[in-house]
C-alpha cells in the first residue's frame, strides 16, 4: 500500500514527520517498508528574489537580472522570460544543479554577459506544462530557502506492508482512522479545491428478505435498468449517470496526489475514480455511457466462451467464475478491469459510474484465471466494505463535477444483503492471560472506540463490543486482544523470563540418529550438501509435482543419489575432482499400494584422491570400492547401532556392488556411480542408506514420533572386556583359493575351526599370477590367538593351524600355498 504523507496530513492534523509516522505505523499498525522522498530532484532548487532586471544590451528579449539567492552577493543571471518582475520570488537553479530533464546548469556567457544560474519555469522543474514564463512564487519565504521546504511538492510516499487480513488499511481513510486511534486526534475527509455541495441521496432498493436468492434491480434513468443477478454474490451495486462532462487534464493538485501513490494521471474523470480508490479504498469504475446499449446494465456471471477486450487492449477469455458488467455483452470484468469499448475517452460526454462491493472469492478466482492483478482486484479480493459505497459515490460525483462539470442523476443503490455488525465480548482476564500483563479496561476501551469499535456495555471485567463493518478481520475475542495489544504497544509489555514446566516431549530419535550419522560423515572427511530434491523423472517411478516450476524438475527424487550425482557433475564441471559429499535428506518413494513413503536417508558420493597430496606422496591413490565399503559399514553401524551390519555382495553384476543389511534386512546400497564425467576424473562411488521412514498423510498418533524405525542408541553401548595381559601368538596363512570361493566363506570356516582363542583374523594380501595356478588366487590372513590367563604353547598353535587347514581342504578345497 502506497500512502502519501501529505494526503494523510489532510485527514489528520498531525505534526509528525514522515519518519515519525513510519515509527508510529510500524509500532502499532503495519510495517512501513520504505519512505520514498518524492521530487528529490528538486532538492538543489532554492527560492530567489529578483532585485533588478534590465534589458540585455544585445538582445530584444533577454533580461539581465540581479538575483538574491541567499548568498552574500547578488548573482547576475540572464533570463528570457517575459514575466520577470523586480521584487518577485522565483525558483532558482544555482550553478551545478542537474535539472529534472538532465540538463546541467553551468556558468556561461550569453551574448557577452555571464549568467550564474537559472530562474525556472514550471515545466523546467517538472511541475506542469507551463513554460510561457518563469514560475512566480506566492509565498512568504526568504531568498535561499530550499524550494521543497516552501512548496508542498516534496511529498513522501510511505510504502506499507499491509496484512491480508486488513483490507481496511488499503486506503488513506483506513490509515487515517488508525492514526486517529494511535494519536487521539480526530480525522476528517480532506478539503478539496472547488468541491461543490452534496450530491443527491441514492435511491435504495433492497433484496426481498423472504427470497434473498432473487435478483435485485432498479432504474438509474427512466430508460436504463440495472440488474444484479443473485449468483454474482455482489453485495451492493450503486450506479449513477453523469451527463455533459468535459474530459480534460486534471489540475495540478490531483496529478500530484496520484503521483505520490504511484498512479499516473490519465484524465479528470479517470483520475477522480482512482483518487477515490486510494482515498477511501473503494474502487470506482466510469463507463462511457454512449457506448452502452440496450437500456440495461447487468451484473451477471460470464457466459461460456465469452470474451472481452480489457482496457490494456488484450482480448481475454472470461472464466465461468468471472462476474461481468454487461449491456448486450460484457463491458467490464467486475472488480478487475474495465473494457476497452466502454473506456472513458476525450470524446466522452456522459458517464455511467459504478461503486460496488463485489464478492472476494469470485473476484480472486477471476483475477487468477485472467492473470490480471489491479488496484481494484487487490481490494475486492480482500473485501470492500459495502457500507462504504454511498460515501464513495458522493465523493466521486462531487470530484467529477468539480473537475469535469456535468450533472449527476440520483444514484441507484442496489443492496442484495444487509451487513450484520458482529458483537464480540472482551474479558479482562483473557487480556491478562494472553498478554501476560493487564491493560486497564478503560484504557482498552479508549483504544477500541477510537478505532471505530462501539462499546455497547461494559463492566470492570468485560465489555460487549460492536465491530465496525470495515473490520472483517475481527470475529472473536482474540482479535480484540490483538487490537488492545498493538494499540497499547508491544514495547510496553515486559520481557522477563518466567518459570516454566518441562516439556512432555523428547528429541525425535530420528533427529538424534541423523545427528550421529552427520558427525560420523564429517569425521570421515565429507562435506554436507543440501541440494534441491527436484528431478526429471518418470511418472511410473517418481512422485510427480502437479504444478512444477519447470518440466525438467517435475518429479521428486526417489533416491538421494539422483541429486548427489548432479552435484558431483557440477563440481567436475568446475574442474574439481576431489569430491566427498554427503546428504541427510528425504527420498520420496511411491509404494505399490498407491501411497507415498518419505524416507530419511544418507547419501554419499566419493571420488578423487584418498588424501591430500604431500611431498612424501605427490600423487595419492584414488578412492576405490573398498573405501566405499568401509564408509558404508561405518555409516550403517552408526545409523543402526546394536544391529548386525553386513555388506552382502550384489548378485546382479551391474553398477551395484553391495547391499547393506542390518539384522538381515536391506537398508541400503553401495554402487559405482555413473557420471557424465571428463576424461581426467577418477571413478566415482556412492552409498545410500535408509535411516527411517514416514508413510505420508498419516495423522499423528498419540505418544509416537513421526519417523518409524527410530534407532536405539543404547543398544550400541559397548560392555567392558578385560584388556589382554597375556602375550598373543600370531601366524600367517597364505591360501590358494579356487574361483567361486569367497573370502567370507574362508573366514567362516577358519573361525569355526580356530575356536574361541582366535582374537583377530585380518586379510592382508591378495595375489594372482606367477606361482599361482590358474583359476585360483592367493589370499593371506594373519591370525592372532590369545589365552586370557596364560601364554599359549607352540604345540597348541600348531594344532589349531592343522585343524584349520584340514577344515578348509575338506569344506572348500582351499589349500595352503607352498610356493
Amino acid at each position, binding site marked *: 500500500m502506497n500512502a502519501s504523507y501529505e494526503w494523510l496530513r489532510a485527514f489528520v492534523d498531525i505534526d509528525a514527520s514522515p519518519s515519525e509516522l513510519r515509527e508510529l505505523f510500524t509500532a502499532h499498525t503495519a510495517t512501513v517498508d520504505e519512505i520514498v522522498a518524492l521530487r528529490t530532484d528538486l532538492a538543489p532548487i532554492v527560492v530567489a528574489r529578483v532585485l533588478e532586471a534590465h534589458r540585455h544590451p544585445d538582445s530584444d528579449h533577454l533580461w539581465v537580472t540581479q538575483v538574491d539567492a541567499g548568498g552574500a552577493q547578488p548573482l547576475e543571471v540572464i533570463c528570457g522570460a517575459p514575466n520577470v518582475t523586480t521584487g518577485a520570488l522565483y525558483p532558482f537553479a544555482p550553478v551545478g544543479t542537474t535539472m529534472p530533464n538532465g540538463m546541467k546548469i553551468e556558468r556561461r556567457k550569453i551574448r557577452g554577459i555571464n549568467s550564474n544560474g537559472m530562474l525556472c519555469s514550471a515545466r523546467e522543474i517538472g511541475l506542469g506544462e507551463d513554460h510561457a514564463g518563469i514560475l512566480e512564487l506566492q509565498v512568504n519565504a526568504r531568498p535561499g530557502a530550499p524550494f521543497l521546504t516552501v512548496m508542498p511538492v516534496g511529498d513522501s510516499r510511505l510504502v506499507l506492508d499491509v496484512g491480508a487480513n486488513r483490507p481496511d488499511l488499503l486506503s488513506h481513510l483506513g490509515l487515517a482512522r488508525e492514526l486517529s486511534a494511535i494519536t487521539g486526534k480526530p480525522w476528517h475527509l480532506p478539503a478539496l479545491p472547488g468541491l461543490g455541495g452534496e450530491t443527491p441521496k441514492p435511491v435504495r432498493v433492497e433484496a426481498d428478505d423472504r427470497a434473498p436468492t432473487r435478483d435485485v434491480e432498479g432504474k438509474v434513468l427512466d430508460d436504463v435498468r440495472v440488474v444484479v443477478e443473485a449468483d454474482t454474490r455482489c453485495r451492493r451495486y450503486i450506479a449513477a449517470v453523469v451527463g455533459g462532462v468535459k474530459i480534460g487534464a486534471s489540475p495540478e493538485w490531483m496529478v500530484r496526489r496520484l503521483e505520490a501513490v504511484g498512479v499516473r494521471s490519465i484524465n479528470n474523470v479517470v483520475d477522480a475514480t482512482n483518487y477515490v480508490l486510494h482515498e477511501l479504498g473503494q474502487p470506482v469504475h466510469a463507463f462511457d455511457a454512449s457506448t452502452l446499449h440496450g437500456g440495461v446494465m447487468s451484473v451477471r456471471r460470464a457466459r461460456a466462451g465469452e470474451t472481452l477486450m480489457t482496457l490494456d487492449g488484450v482480448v481475454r477469455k472470461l472464466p465461468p467464475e468471472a462476474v461481468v458488467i454487461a449491456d448486450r455483452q460484457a463491458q467490464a470484468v467486475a472488480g478487475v478491469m474495465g473494457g476497452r469499448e466502454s473506456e472513458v475517452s476525450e470524446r466522452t460526454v456522459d458517464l455511467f459510474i459504478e461503486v460496488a462491493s463485489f464478492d472476494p472469492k469470485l473476484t480472486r478466482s477471476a483475477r487468477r484465471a485472467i492473470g490480471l492483478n489491479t488496484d481494484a482486484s487487490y481490494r475486492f479480493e480482500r473485501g470492500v466494505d459495502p457500507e462504504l459505497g454511498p460515501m464513495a459515490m458522493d465523493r466521486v460525483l462531487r470530484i467529477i463535477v468539480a473537475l469535469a462539470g456535468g450533472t449527476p442523476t440520483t444514484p441507484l443503490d442496489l443492496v442484495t444483503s444487509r451487513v450484520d455488525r458482529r458483537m464480540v465480548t472482551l474479558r479482562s482476564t483473557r487480556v491478562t492471560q494472553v498478554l501476560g500483563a493487564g491493560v486497564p479496561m478503560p484504557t482498552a476501551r479508549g483504544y477500541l472506540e477510537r478505532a471505530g469499535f462501539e462499546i455497547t456495555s461494559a463492566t470492570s471485567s468485560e465489555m460487549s463490543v460492536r465491530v465496525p463493518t470495515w473490520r472483517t478481520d475481527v470475529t472473536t475475542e482474540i482479535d480484540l486482544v*490483538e487490537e488492545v495489544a498493538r494499540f497499547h504497544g*508491544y514495547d510496553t509489555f515486559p520481557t522477563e523470563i518466567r518459570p516454566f514446566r518441562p516439556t*512432555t516431549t*523428547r528429541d525425535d530419535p530420528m533427529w538424534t540418529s541423523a545427528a550421529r550419522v552427520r558427525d560420523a560423515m564429517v569425521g570421515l572427511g565429507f562435506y554436507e550438501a543440501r541440494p534441491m530434491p527436484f528431478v526429471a523423472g518418470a511418472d511410473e517411478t517418481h512422485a510427480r509435482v502437479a504444478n512444477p516450476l519447470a518440466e525438467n524438475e517435475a518429479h521428486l527424487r526417489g533416491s538421494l543419489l539422483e541429486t548427489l550425482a548432479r552435484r558431483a557433475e557440477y563440481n567436475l564441471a*568446475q574442474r574439481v575432482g576431489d569430491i566427498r559429499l554427503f546428504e541427510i535428506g528425504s527420498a520420496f518413494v511411491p509404494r505399490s499400494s498407491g501411497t507415498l513413503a518419505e524416507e530419511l536417508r544418507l547419501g554419499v558420493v566419493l571420488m578423487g584422491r584418498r588424501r591430500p597430496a*604431500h611431498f612424501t606422496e605427490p600423487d595419492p591413490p584414488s578412492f576405490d570400492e573398498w573405501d566405499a565399503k568401509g564408509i558404508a559399514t561405518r555409516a550403517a553401524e552408526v545409523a543402526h547401532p546394536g544391529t548386525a551390519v553386513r555388506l552382502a555382495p550384489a548378485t546382479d553384476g551391474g553398477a551395484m556392488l553391495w547391499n547393506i543389511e542390518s539384522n538381515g534386512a536391506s537398508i541400503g546400497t553401495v554402487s559405482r556411480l555413473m557420471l557424465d564425467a571428463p576424461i581426467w576424473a577418477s571413478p566415482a562411488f556412492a552409498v545410500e542408506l535408509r535411516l527411517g521412514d514416514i508413510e505420508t498423510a498419516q495423522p*499423528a498418533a498419540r505418544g509416537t514420533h513421526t519417523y518409524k524405525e527410530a534407532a536405539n542408541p543404547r543398544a550400541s553401548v559397548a560392555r567392558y572386556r578385560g584388556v589382554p595381559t597375556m602375550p598373543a601368538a600370531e601366524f600367517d596363512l597364505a591360501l590358494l583359493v579356487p574361483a567361486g570361493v569367497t573370502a567370507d566363506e574362508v573366514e567362516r570356516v577358519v573361525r569355526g575351526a580356530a575356536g574361541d582363542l582366535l582374537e583377530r583374523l585380518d586379510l592382508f594380501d591378495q595375489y594372482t599370477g606367477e606361482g599361482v595356478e590358474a583359476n585360483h588366487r592367493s589370499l593371506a590372513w594373519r591370525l592372532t590367538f590369545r589365552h586370557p590367563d596364560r601364554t599359549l604353547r607352540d604345540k597348541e598353535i600348531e594344532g589349531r593351524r592343522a585343524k584349520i587347514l584340514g577344515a578348509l581342504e575338506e569344506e572348500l578345497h582351499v589349500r595352503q600355498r607352498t610356493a
Partner: protein
Amino acid sequence: MRAIAASRSAGSGAQDLTMPPRRQWYGAKHPVTLVIEEIADIFRELGFTIALGPQVETEWYNFGALNFPADHPAMDAHDTLYLRDDLLLRTHTSPVQIRTLQQYPPPIRILAPGDVYRRDFFDASHAPMFAQIEGLCVDEGISFVDLKAMLNNFARRFFGAAKTRFRPSYFPFTEPSAEMDVQCQLCKGAGCAVCKQTGWTEILGSGMVHPAVLQSAGVDAEKYTGWAFGMGPARIALQRYDIPDIRILYDSDVRFLEQIAEPSTKAGDG
C-alpha cells in the same frame, strides 16, 4: 646466530622442519545445518526438544488446521507445490505444531527444523525449497511476555544484539502476531542501505498461538495458551557467512564447502 645455523643445516642432511605437514581431508557440516544447530542449542538450554514432521503433508495439516481461510489472499505468500489428491509439499514447518500437539499433552516446548517448499523461481534471493525452524511453547499461563522474553534472549545470544523490537504482523495461525527485528549489525541502528534506513533487520515471525489452532489439535484453548515462532536459517546463513547468492547454498560446490571446513586455513592463505 643459532637460528641461522639451524636453517643452514636444514639443507644439508638434517630434516627441514619448515616443510608442510601431512594432512587428512577435513569434512564440514553445511552452513545451514550449523545455523540450525546453533539456534537449537540456545533453545535447548531453556527446555526445548526437537520435533520432526513429513515434508509431504495434507492440506489440513498445512493450512486447514492452522486457521488459513480457504481461497484467501493469505495463501498468496504460500504459493504451493501440490502432488496429487490433497497431498502437497509443506510450505512451512508449522504442521509440526499440530502433529506435536496431537501426539503429546502440554506442557510442550519444541523446535521443529526442516525443509519447506514454495512455488518460487530459483534466483539470487529465492529458492523453491529452503530450511525453516519453528518453535512452539504451549502450557497454562504462557503469555506474550514469555514470547518476548524467550525471543529476546535468543536474539541476544545468537546475534549479540543489544536491541530488539516487535512489530504487529499477520499470520493466520497466531494472534497477536509479531515480527521481531534486531538492531542492524552493520550500522548499529543508525540506518544504512542494508536495513533500508530503518536501523533494523527482520529476523523472525512469531505470535501467540491462535485459539483455533489449539482447537484443531484438540487442545483446550481456554485453559492453555502458547506462543510460536518461525525463521529461515538459510537467510541467516547468508548474512553470517557473507554469501551473496542463495543458490550457492544449493550448488554443493566443494570449494565453497571447504571454506566452511577450514576458515582459518583459507584466511591465512589469503
